[in-house]
């Protein structure tokens, strides 16, 4: 079972976890990403490649399903304008045992950061803005799963 959503709207972590708890396993793990309110950041704009995003996130989810014995995976990634404190991304996994649930969540968020077509632009209180630069560390964290 899997659920992938690319959406502008906020989501309920409780509802996502409740759905995962219904999967019949003994373990549910999740990761929620939040817009950090660093400095004088006013908002983030999440841009994406609509024709590609859902299929690419689905490919990442399929990789997780093929690597770990998972009962269910749920991924939500928001797009559009997001203010500090807003949820950006949710990944959740249900499995019979904790290792699969925990490891697959770490895998999913590492891959979403470096292998899905999203771009963040930061807007600041003084009216300036800048595109977030990709961090070499993010690609390294994705690549470590190839060696695992």
């Amino acid at each position, binding site marked *: 079972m899997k659920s992938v959503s690319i959406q502008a709207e906020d989501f309920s972590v409780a509802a996502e976890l409740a759905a995962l708890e219904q999967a019949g396993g003994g373990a549910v793990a999740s990761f929620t990403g939040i817009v950090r309110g660093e400095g004088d950041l006013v908002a983030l704009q999440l841009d994406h490649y609509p024709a590609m995003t859902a299929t690419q996130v689905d490919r990442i989810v399929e990789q997780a399903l093929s690597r770990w014995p998972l009962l269910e995976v749920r991924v939500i990634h928001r797009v559009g304008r997001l203010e500090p404190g807003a949820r950006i991304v949710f990944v959740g996994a249900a499995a019979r045992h904790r290792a699969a649930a925990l490891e697959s969540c770490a895998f999913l968020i590492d891959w979403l950061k470096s292998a899905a*077509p999203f771009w963040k632009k930061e807007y600041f209180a003084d009216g300036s803005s800048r*595109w977030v630069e990709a961090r070499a560390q993010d690609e390294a964290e994705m690549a470590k799963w190839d060696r695992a």
Partner: protein
Amino acid sequence: MLTVVYFAWVRELIGLDEERVEPPAGAKVADVVASLAARSDGHTQALSDGGRLRAALDQQFVALDTPVGAARELALFPPVTGG
């Protein structure tokens, strides 16, 4: 005919969401990028440093030395920053 779509600062510098090109037979993604880079100052700024560019052909990530082949859509963009 190949539709080229742009995202993030690549789109902003070029000032277009997409445009069309007719790549010569056997062209690689890098060849299309090089010919597009000459179209305007914005194109030059956005496309002249291949190290800062990533690409997708028909919605699949590819390296810049990949042949365009029969693909219909080429996307050019910076390294992704989601999650």
